[in-house]
């Protein structure tokens, strides 16, 4: 159905895909596996016509194709469910399901009644109780995902690509999703399934292709390989090499920050945790469990609806980012482009952005001093760049992340919060970032690391706090930390 030959895609400064060849047959569920940043999303976007490949050719349904826009790919019968939703928040569920394929009456006008009725039918077939009239922004994240899935079912799709569709749904909804996927497969639809949940790949997929650092590593029949082989193909090295060696446990390090009963309306319900000097605390939980919101509330970005933050004995019932920074708290946000970096400014300006008083005299910047600081940061964080004057937009994700961390490390005396610090960076940069975190902790900083990647949580944390549905569902001390325990706390209602 789909065949890719030597596809490469280069963005300024990044080779996202290099010579990927892959074929997907009709009537199969083809898993695409790989670590974050391996190129799965880029490949999806090339197939969907969002990005034109820099090199290589693509054929679809036996014809060579070169999409000029997603519209071409859609018209040819390709439907993608992206990881980030493409729903229209102020249209209803029914309108979202039929957008682009409107139910129309004899006169060619949109038939509102039929839209609603047919949407209700599809949602029922999917086994979810969603009011077709509900505006999408009123739906829960899981329901929004089901609307996305419903949308894929209403028209003739030849190739369906799903990027992490189960990240925000669980249990019965996952089962219903796979029921539909198997039905589509029997109808001859080609399905590309991207997931970090390996058990789903083994339970439902026919073949699996592995991407790593933008290259196609292997394609295997799922029946022919086991979990360990797949993981080693994905990681390309032994897990243990990834993380710095564990340090001996510190005896009773002092608590530098204590969050008590923090509430963020609709997101976090009375969550509390404490952070100790020189300790890396992992914060785990499903997407949407309130992890990020808890961190944002501690840092003062989200208003606290209740609770308090105690820093060195002083209790605050309201927090602002300015106050948090003054208290020596730093936050590396999940989305560095949106919140962390001035992309067009150079490395030096970004490193010193929040400590300008240290590099200015009488209100004027001392550019030489700034450069010196930046050079020191580039060395100690091993930032790969041409020098302090390179704009960060031209650097790879991993190196951008190091610049962000370098900046916050300069202002954070007590606490550094890192939200998904290694998202979208390659393995090498990951190891660097782990090493930096370790060094900062050794210097006495309390680190709170939010991560969706369990190996990262397990490999880096001295303690792990797990959240579920806005509340803390458990705390694991050093000896208790393993993936199974975390998953249990993150998903099950009645976990021990």
């Amino acid at each position, binding site marked *: 159905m789909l065949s890719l030959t030597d596809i490469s895609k280069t963005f300024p400064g990044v080779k996202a895909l290099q010579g990927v060849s892959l074929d997907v047959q009709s009537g199969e569920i083809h898993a695409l596996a790989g670590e974050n940043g391996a190129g799965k999303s880029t490949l999806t976007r090339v197939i969907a016509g969002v990005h034109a490949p820099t090199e290589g050719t693509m054929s679809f349904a036996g014809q060579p194709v070169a999409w000029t826009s997603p519209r071409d790919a859609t018209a040819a019968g390709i439907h993608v469910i992206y990881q980030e939703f493409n729903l*229209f928040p102020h249209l209803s569920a029914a309108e979202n399901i039929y957008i682009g394929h409107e139910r129309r009456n004899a006169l060619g006008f*949109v038939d509102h009644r039929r839209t609603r009725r047919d949407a209700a039918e599809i949602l029922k077939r999917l086994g979810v109780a969603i009011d077709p009239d509900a505006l999408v922004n009123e739906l829960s994240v899981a329901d929004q995902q089901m609307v996305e899935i419903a949308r894929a079912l209403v028209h003739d799709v030849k190739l369906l690509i799903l990027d992490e569709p189960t990240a925000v749904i669980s249990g019965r909804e996952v089962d219903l999703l796979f029921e539909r996927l198997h039905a589509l497969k029997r109808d001859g639809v080609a399905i590309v399934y991207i997931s970090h949940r390996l058990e789903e790949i083994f339970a439902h997929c026919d073949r699996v292709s592995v991407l790593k650092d933008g290259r196609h590593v292997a394609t295997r029949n799922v029946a022919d390989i086991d979990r360990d082989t797949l993981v080693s193909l994905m990681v390309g090295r032994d897990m243990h090499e990834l993380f710095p060696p564990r340090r001996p446990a510190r005896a009773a390090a002092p608590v530098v920050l204590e969050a008590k009963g923090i509430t963020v309306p609709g997101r976090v319900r009375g969550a509390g945790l404490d952070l100790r000097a020189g300790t890396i605390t992992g914060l785990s939980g499903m997407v949407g469990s309130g992890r990020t919101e808890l961190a944002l509330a501690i840092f003062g970005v989200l208003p606290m609806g209740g609770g308090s933050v105690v820093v060195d004995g002083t209790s605050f019932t309201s927090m602002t980012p300015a106050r948090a920074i003054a208290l020596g708290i730093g936050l590396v946000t999940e989305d560095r482009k949106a919140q962390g970096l001035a992309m067009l400014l150079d490395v030096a300006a970004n490193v010193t952005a929040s400590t300008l008083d240290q590099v200015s005299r009488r209100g004027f910047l001392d550019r030489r001093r700034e450069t010196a600081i930046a050079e020191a940061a580039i060395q100690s964080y091993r930032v790969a760049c041409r020098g302090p004057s390179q704009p960060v937009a031209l650097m790879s994700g991993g190196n951008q992340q190091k610049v962000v961390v370098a900046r916050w490390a300069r202002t954070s005396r007590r606490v550094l919060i890192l939200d998904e610090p290694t998202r979208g960076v390659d393995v090498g940069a990951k190891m660097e970032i782990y090493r930096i975190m370790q060094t900062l902790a050794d210097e006495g900083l309390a680190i709170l690391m939010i991560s969706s990647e369990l190996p990262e949580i397990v490999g880096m944390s001295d303690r792990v706090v797990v959240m579920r549905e806005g509340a803390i569902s458990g705390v694991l001390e050093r000896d208790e930390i393993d993936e199974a325990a975390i998953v249990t706390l993150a998903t099950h209602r009645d976990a021990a």
Partner: protein
Amino acid sequence: MTDMALPSRDRARLRRMAASNAGLLVVLSLLVLMLLIGAVVSDRFRTFGNVANVFEQSTGLALVSLGQTLAVLTGGIDLAVGSLISLIICLTAGLLDGDGTYMIPVLAGMLALGAAIGLVNGLGVVYLRIHPLIVTLGMGAVLQGVTLLYALGPVGSVPDGFDALAYGTFGPLPAAAVVTVLLYVATALLLRSSRFGRYIYAVGDDGNAAKLIGLPRTQVILFVYAFSGFFAAVTAIYLVARFGSGQPYAGANYTLASITPVVVGGTMLSGGRGGVMGTLFGAYLVSLLNNLLNFLDVSTYVQLMFQGLIIILAVSLYVEKRKSIA
């Protein structure tokens, strides 16, 4: 969680209806309030003649705001309309120059010119990827310059009988105002029940998503700016029929003025929410307010100040509402 008399589904539907028509409800209540105040403070205000007068005076504003609404619904804005109106007023008066022989081709040409200039705005937004604010602001300056090259002062005149376009009546009602209402109703129906109308909302709600799932985002954007340019030209022809001759700054106030009814009528500047009927009532509200201020002997300069304040107030009102819903 809560036990209420209505099943949650019905409650949700009611709430949603109220939310989606919030702008309409607000602007209608303001309209009624304004009428009551007017009736109390002035005897002449509450005559049928005066109400018909307000209805008629709203026509120019309503026409240009119709196009503006669509631009705003996609998350854009058209700041070229004022200069475009000035240009077409001058060209129409200048080209006709009191002679009705070529009236039809001139008017058709003017409408096409308006749509074409709007289309160029759309092309700038889509292909140069410039923010609509800048594209249309720049285009406005260009058009004002062209207008002044063509005419530094009053120019041309319209043929006899041309003023019927502005002053004709259907029975007791001003014809142009009635036609405007019909145009609004037709546009409202198309927005609600045509595929393209749905895409206009989708593009305004999330333009990136619209592109990713293969909706004709480019065509939508090109269309709304052409539509806005077309209705600026319609407005200009209506105005030149009223004025009888061209003035190079005749349309200048319409840029700001065209946005007031849109935002007062509940269309979000962020796009994706609102509709044209709110704009129509918004236009009535603005005209009514000006009329009332006239009766109170308030100068047109102060009226302009009021308009500016209304825009800011209206936007802040709806911003607040959005927060409480979210």
